């Protein structure tokens, strides 16, 4: 008989090591019981964090989450996770979890009953609405809203109160991707999918630190490269990141000059006759828009692009200014590297996957750089072929599923529809069973303008859910002061105290992630569902959608929300799904999502679509059409090559402020760290913010590695410790600061300039001074 002794002993030096020896019996039992999996309850969910949408298995024990592992059955991550995913069990149990509604009494937030808090919100919103009209109220939501959270908010605002002042933090991260897709293809979201990552020959990263920001997808690429050593990874960036060390070619460029680089590559492709004239003839139209379009720095800035048709000859002529010599001068990229890039895009044998995220989207010409990357694929016909596609990565878990698909933005309705279109308003009013006049045709304030309106006093009541704008708004000093002004009523729903709950008049504690039922939609159009698995800390922690419904009912909009409390998530989702049926954006049925690891829309007859617009994969493409951008009806199912020039950024380093400042995330922390900093292991990995500086610059300024440094911009200042060789290495003349640290608010320094077409601000470039302290 074997009696294995199980030794459990400490194995880190410094911690007392007591050997606990126990003789264990060999219990005898039927072999279908007490296996690893059946020890506890396990259920599927998408990860709470980024837009990759990894599947996890959640382990519930005694009513609490005890562990999370990667879901090997989920095709997104095939079992792999990053450390944030493994840390999911920790984010629910921070000791200072909000468990009671709070109401401001004087300068203090005091505990209140849930009913008191909800009634106060309802009466304040109703008063404001009655006295100042629908433009005086606002909702600021999130790409971390579940689909039904966003849908309930949208219906209440646009269908109930005739207000289009509903925005989401995705405006700060994905708006340029949306306008890029809409202007080029007439429909939002990628045609490709993650399968392309296993099929491509070259990966071109446009300002994208994938190893940290989408680590599981990056590991998928590295695995593909390991199996196929000829696969090339090209990193086009303004700073060396952990991604750079895995790349075959690093193309460092001066901030903003990506516009010139993309046009320069297109110019070379045409000059060297590497483009695909047949593809262009069949699938492409050319257009140009306005130039010198400004930066949105002024209050009430307005911009409307006007598209004009252009001919191919005109395009060729337009590109002539982007000679390798000129582009090299603007961008600092050697001419050989531009040629290498044009060889990759131009060689018909190389399947190219272009990837980008915040580097292209948080850009005062964000829409343009999105268009310009599409141009390269349209010029060479490298689109709609498995392995060859442009692919816009998403930051947040449901920026696609909720904000972009449901349309929780000032101008949008579900399924690519907009409030300015009378037909779209009619469709929405039919599904909502309301008079069509109820839907306001005038778009509301976009995010930056919304906070400016709060400052001016045009907005008097605002509800913020699942986001932390008092850490993330650019030029934060202004908006912090705005929020604290008299006659501003601010409601914040969150799970932990944050700088945003500090300024609130009412705080609602929320149920998070698997404490409630929900759906997320990820970067590759995959809608995923999870069940409620554990109770929230107290009954007063409501899901965000139910908070909205409770307030809407108290304001007399009960007719819009006639759902049963037990089944309302299903009812909301199925109602929302009606908007998508027959549009080419058909989301999966509720019941199908219960059993599948998500499905990629369009889902027709329960069948998902890996590649949009491609015959044989997309049911909306008719037999014989091959490839059809059928959503772009205005251009007869063709995609658009845009003539978009290089224009300089609004603020360029000068004598007074000689450094570029770039901000971003780190792998260990999610956004403002309100969840991840409460996980001890993640906090200990990156305890506070810091500034990456080039050692040569530091030497000139008398700064030592680890020393304290003061950064000053025209808007604010910040003292941080510096790192010479952090995870990233910045070139001379630039610094990088992560934004997760609520005690070191780098957004006091950033500039609230934005892309005039998408209204997305640029967090990646402004000018600062660096001093030793």
């Amino acid at each position, binding site marked *: 008989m074997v009696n294995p002794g199980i*030794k459990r002993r*400490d194995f*880190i030096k410094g911690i007392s090591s007591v050997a606990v020896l126990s003789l*264990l019996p060999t*219990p005898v039992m039927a072999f279908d019981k007490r296996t690893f999996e059946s020890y506890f309850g396990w259920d599927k969910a998408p990860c709470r964090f980024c837009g990759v949408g990894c599947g996890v298995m959640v382990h519930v024990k005694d009513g609490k989450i005890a562990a*999370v592992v990667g879901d090997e059955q989920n095709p997104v991550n095939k079992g792999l996770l990053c450390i944030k995913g493994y840390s999911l069990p920790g984010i629910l149990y*921070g000791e200072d979890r909000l468990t009671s509604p709070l109401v401001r009494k004087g300068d203090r937030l005091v505990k209140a009953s849930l009913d008191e808090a909800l009634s106060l919100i309802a009466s304040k919103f109703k008063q404001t609405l009655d006295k100042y009209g629908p433009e005086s109220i606002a909702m600021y939501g999130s790409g971390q809203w579940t689909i039904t959270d966003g849908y309930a908010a949208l219906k209440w605002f646009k269908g109930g109160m005739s207000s289009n002042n509903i925005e989401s933090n995705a405006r700060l991260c994905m708006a340029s991707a949306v306008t890029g897709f809409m202007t080029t293809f007439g429909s939002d979201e990628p045609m490709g999918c993650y399968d392309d990552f296993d099929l491509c020959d070259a990966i071109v990263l446009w300002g994208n630190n994938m190893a940290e920001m989408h680590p599981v997808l*990056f590991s998928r690429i590295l695995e593909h490269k390991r199996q196929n050593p000829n696969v090339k990874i090209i990193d086009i960036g303004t700073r060396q990141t952990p991604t750079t060390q895995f790349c075959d070619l690093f193309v460092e460029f001066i901030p903003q000059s990506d516009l010139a680089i993309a046009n320069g590559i297109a110019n070379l492709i045409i000059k060297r006759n590497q483009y695909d004239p047949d593809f262009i003839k069949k699938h492409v139209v050319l257009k140009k828009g306005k130039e010198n379009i400004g930066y949105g720095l002024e209050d009430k800035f307005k911009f409307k692009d006007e598209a004009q048709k252009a001919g191919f000859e005109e395009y060729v002529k337009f590109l002539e200014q982007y000679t390798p010599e000129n582009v090299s001068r603007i961008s600092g990229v050697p001419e050989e590297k531009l040629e290498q890039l044009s060889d990759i895009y131009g060689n018909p044998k190389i399947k190219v996957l272009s990837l980008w995220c915040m580097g292209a989207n948080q850009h005062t010409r964000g829409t343009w750089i999105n268009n310009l990357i599409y141009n390269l694929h349209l010029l060479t016909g490298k689109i709609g072929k498995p392995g060859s596609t442009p692919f816009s990565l998403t930051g947040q878990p449901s920026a696609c599923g909720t904000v972009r698909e449901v349309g929780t933005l000032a101008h949008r309705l579900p399924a690519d529809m907009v409030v300015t279109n009378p037909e779209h308003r009619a469709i929405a009013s039919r599904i909502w069973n309301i008079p069509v006049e109820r839907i306001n045709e005038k778009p509301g304030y976009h995010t930056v303008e919304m906070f400016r309106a709060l400052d001016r006093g045009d907005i008097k009541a605002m509800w913020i859910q699942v986001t932390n704008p008092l850490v993330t708004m650019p030029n934060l000093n202004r908006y912090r002061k705005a929020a604290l002004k008299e006659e501003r009523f601010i409601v914040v729903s969150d799970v932990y105290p944050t700088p945003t709950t500090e300024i609130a008049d009412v705080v609602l504690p929320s149920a998070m992630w698997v404490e409630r039922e929900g759906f997320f939609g990820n970067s590759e159009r995959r809608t995923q569902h999870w069940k409620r698995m554990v109770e929230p800390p107290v009954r007063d922690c409501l899901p965000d959608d139910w908070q909205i419904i409770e307030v809407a009912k108290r304001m007399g909009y009960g007719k819009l929300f006639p759902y049963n409390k037990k089944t309302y998530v299903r009812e909301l989702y199925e109602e929302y799904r009606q908007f998508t049926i027959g549009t080419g954006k058909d989301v999966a049925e509720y019941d199908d999502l219960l059993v599948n690891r998500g499905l990629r829309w369009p889902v027709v007859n329960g069948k998902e679509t890996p590649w949009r617009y491609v015959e044989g994969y997309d049911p909306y493409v008719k037999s014989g059409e091959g490839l059809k951008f059928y959503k772009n009806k205005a251009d007869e199912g063709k995609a658009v090559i845009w003539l978009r020039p290089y224009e300089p950024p609004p603020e360029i380093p000068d004598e007074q402020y000689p450094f570029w400042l770039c901000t971003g995330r780190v792998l260990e922390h999610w956004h403002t760290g309100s969840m991840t900093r409460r996980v001890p292991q993640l906090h200990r990995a990156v305890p506070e913010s810091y500034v990456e500086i080039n050692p040569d610059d530091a030497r000139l300024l008398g700064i030592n590695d680890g020393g304290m440094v003061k950064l000053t911009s025209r808007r604010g200042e910040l003292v941080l410790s510096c790192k010479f060789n952090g995870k990233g290495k910045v070139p001379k003349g630039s610094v990088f600061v992560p934004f997760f640290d609520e005690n070191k608010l780098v957004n006091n320094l950033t500039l609230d300039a934005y892309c005039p077409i998408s209204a997305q601000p640029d967090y990646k470039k402004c000018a600062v001074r660096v001093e030793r302290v």
Partner: protein
Amino acid sequence: MKDSRLFWIAIFLLVGIKFAIGEGDDSRQSREALRLSAYAPPVIPHDIEDTPCLDCHSQNDMDIPVIPHREISNCRQCHIPQSYVPLFRKNRFRDVSEPVVLTRLYKEAPPLIPHRVFMRENCLACHGKTSRKDVIDTPHPERLNCRQCHIEQKDVKPFRKNTFSSN
């Protein structure tokens, strides 16, 4: 025969009590210092140098934990360094132990693998003589093909019911 049964009942009770009380604090503390929960990857318990992780963590002859899974080159995706600073905010999360009771088909059969194998494909990385001290050591490290006898158990319904019982 009767004696041996009594012996096992006694052991069962003892073990039951041990599990009811919970594990010794020391082993829990050591695990928590290294990872958030039993299934999470360990943190990096040392300073990070410029040497690539696998220079040390792929060799069996050093007293250093060996990589238990296929080589994924972006190590820092899951393994993160630690600086021992005060917590940002306290956290109430407590993990549970991995199952340690070994299950067998019947008494003399080899134990089934009581945990998930994914990312732990190299058994000897943890169960070898010189490796992790908080897990069971194999009594026969010379037999390298572990999964010839020890098999993983997936969470699936039985194919058909079986009335076999060794009781």
